[in-house]
């Protein structure tokens, strides 16, 4: 049962990184791929109907961690207090920005929200990367699960590599998504940018995987190369699917190497948090298993339907006056 929930939480993180990954990327690339207001609106509208639903994967990943492994939830969130504060502020900013940007027809107003979207997307994705690599690589925690040492203990060389791993992934993933969902010049620009950026932007992800699991990183390298190859061949959909496969393999490698720990202690192996010493009671796990068992397939169906409803590529010609 604990193992099942460990896997489920990994799946929730995978859903989050795959889905919000591309809407973070779109936000990060807003001024690069969108040269004027109309083009930026095209980009924002590719994610407009779905980004909020994507973000719920995070809320549920965190909520499920609280329910299934309270000790993990408590230790990780309190130890990474300051990075998480920054993360929350970034999410708040970019969340309202999408909605409010077009509500006033004024270039300075739009500019302010564009800055919020770009900064918020960068900061949020860096923080997510930091959080995930922290839980995989460990923290100086004592026997009680409390952090020993400075509030910046979560910020180290390897976790910073982790931060850039997910930021770099989101950047390329966002460009591939833009290529898939737009037409005309933006699409071309996005394809070119993805291919140019990939060798540099994806390096930290490979490095993180190599730190954690050595040669297993090679699997992800192969998938990522394939993704870029399909993009070169003008097959945006296949490329996007392969990017999804790459993040799935990455999450599998990271959480697979973590298991059965959930948050290793860098001070003493005996103090590491594991699925066994942080899990809720069998009854509680059973309750949330029922809820997740019925709820999650339903979520996949109606979120999938949403993507189907908004499946069409959009371009500047589709954007109505504000």
């Amino acid at each position, binding site marked *: 049962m604990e193992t099942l929930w460990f896997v489920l939480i990994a799946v929730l993180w995978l859903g989050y990184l795959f889905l919000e990954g591309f809407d973070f990327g779109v936000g990060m690339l807003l001024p690069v791929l969108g040269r004027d207001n109309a083009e930026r609106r095209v980009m924002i509208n590719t994610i407009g109907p779905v980004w909020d639903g994507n973000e*719920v994967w995070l809320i*549920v990943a965190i909520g499920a961690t609280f329910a299934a492994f309270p000790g993990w939830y408590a230790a990780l969130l309190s130890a990474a207090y300051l990075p998480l504060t920054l993360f929350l*502020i970034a999410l708040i900013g970019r969340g309202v920005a999408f909605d409010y940007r077009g509500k006033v027809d004024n270039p300075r107003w739009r500019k302010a929200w564009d800055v919020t979207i770009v900064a918020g997307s960068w900061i949020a994705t860096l923080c997510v990367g930091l959080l995930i690599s922290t839980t995989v690589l460990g923290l100086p925690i004592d026997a009680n699960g409390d952090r020993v040492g400075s509030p910046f203990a979560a910020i180290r060389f390897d976790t910073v590599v982790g931060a850039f791993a997910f930021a770099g992934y989101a950047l390329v993933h966002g460009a591939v998504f833009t290529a898939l969902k737009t037409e005309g010049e933006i699409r071309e620009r996005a394809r070119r940018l993805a291919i140019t950026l990939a060798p540099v932007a994806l390096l930290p992800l490979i490095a993180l995987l190599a730190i954690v699991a050595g040669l297993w990183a090679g699997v992800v390298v192969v998938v990522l190369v394939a993704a870029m190859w399909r993009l070169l061949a003008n097959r945006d959909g296949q490329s996007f699917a392969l990017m999804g496969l790459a993040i799935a393999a990455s999450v599998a490698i990271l959480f697979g190497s973590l298991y059965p720990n959930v948050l290793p202690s860098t001070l003493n192996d005996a103090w590491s948090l594991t699925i066994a010493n942080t899990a809720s009671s069998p009854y509680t796990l059973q309750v949330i298993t029922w809820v997740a068992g019925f709820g999650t397939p339903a*979520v996949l169906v109606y979120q999938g339907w949403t993507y189907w409803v908004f499946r069409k590529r959009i371009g500047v*010609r*589709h954007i*109505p006056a504000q």
Partner: protein
Amino acid sequence: MDVLELARWQFGITTVYHFLMVPLTIGLSLLVAGMQTAWVRTGNERYYKMTKFWGKLLLINFAMGVVTGIVQEFQFGMAWSAYSRFVGDVFGAPLAMEGIVAFFVESTFLGLWIFGWDKLPKKVHLACAWAFSLATMASAYFILAANSWMQHPVGIELHEGRPRLTSIWAVLSNNTVLAAFPHTIAGAFAVAGAFLVGIAAWHLYRKSQDEKVWRSSLKLGTWVGVVAFAALSISGDLQGKLMFEQQPMKMAAAEALCHTEQPASFSIFAVGDVTRPDCENVKSITVPALLSFLAHNDFSSEVKGIQDLVPLYQQKYGEFYPVDPKLGELSGKPIDYVPALPVTYWGFRLMIGFGAISAGLGVFMLWLTRKNRTPTGWWFPALGLAGIATPFLANSAGWIFTEMGRQPFVVVPNPTGVDGVWMFTAQAVSNSTPGEILTSLIALTAVYSVLAVVEFYLIRKYVRGGIPGVLPQKTDDGALAFAY
């Protein structure tokens, strides 16, 4: 300030702020879904215009409710990790359910509703409105079930010093949540009702286009407000009676009732210093025997006062905090079982007072606009717009009362429940440095302040803008009917 005080201020500020958006979102979502239903069923353009106008304001507010809600989900772990470890086996489940059952539905169908006007068949699009509206209510239920468990822990056993869940049904059907849910939802409708009344009155006064839209909105808002107030009174009375059993100290503090009385009188207004639990210097205008009735449905029953409750609490839950370095200054100190009396006493009165003013004002506005009249004085829209604030103030006062009234506990002991399950707020905080919490407190307060100004500005702009669109039309060139 120490970690405990900072964390409490942060929780208070972020939660009260979040709960300014939430009731408007819940109430207005359902009203907008109702307006759209009226349009789909009758084809009357007036209802379409209502849906569009109020829907736009709803969305501006919705965004704020969503983003400030994310903070809540993280805050338990970040600032209250000891609490999270202690209650995780019970408290996490309703939160996870809220995410899976409510938040996914809410966010996904909201997206479909906003962008789907021309992409979905009319009825499917309408169903999306109902889906996200009902999901906001479901989310309220789960989070209130979690909160009610802190007020009245049920469905558990004590295992290795921690509560362990034995029945999720007991948690979800806790009598505390069965009373708190209708009370909170009615409070949400009171907010939405006053919002409609105030804004519609302003447009009527301005003689804006589409007079009928504003008249219908004003009428709807008033009736919603009146029914909500009736529901608030009934559910509030039920809640009060439960509270007298479950948390007698909270209710004694709500009345600043120092000595046990039989029959007990209800204090309407107090003059003097209610901070002193000995009640010297307090002159109070009272209704004889009313408190006895509110507590036990019996005008002659006894209601225990603070001074008689304190020894009972000391006997059951201890006179001193344990000696534990984590408790800081409080380690080994006597436990103060009396909540902050001015907050509980006035919080309770402001909640009831503002609620009553809000409903009364609504009825008055309806009377003023009877038979298609519109008063011409500036005081008419002023009264309506000022009235919008009253249910918000009542909601905030009510929550501040009920959360401050359970201090010094974060998990209040259940007098008829499992022995040994309670937690003092002082024991609940994380092992953080004051600097960390101070940083987030300042940062979040600053961001929230800026966003409050932005939201107010946008709502004002779109209220002034009046009715926006025309009927939706299928466009041939594939342009989006709505785009950010």
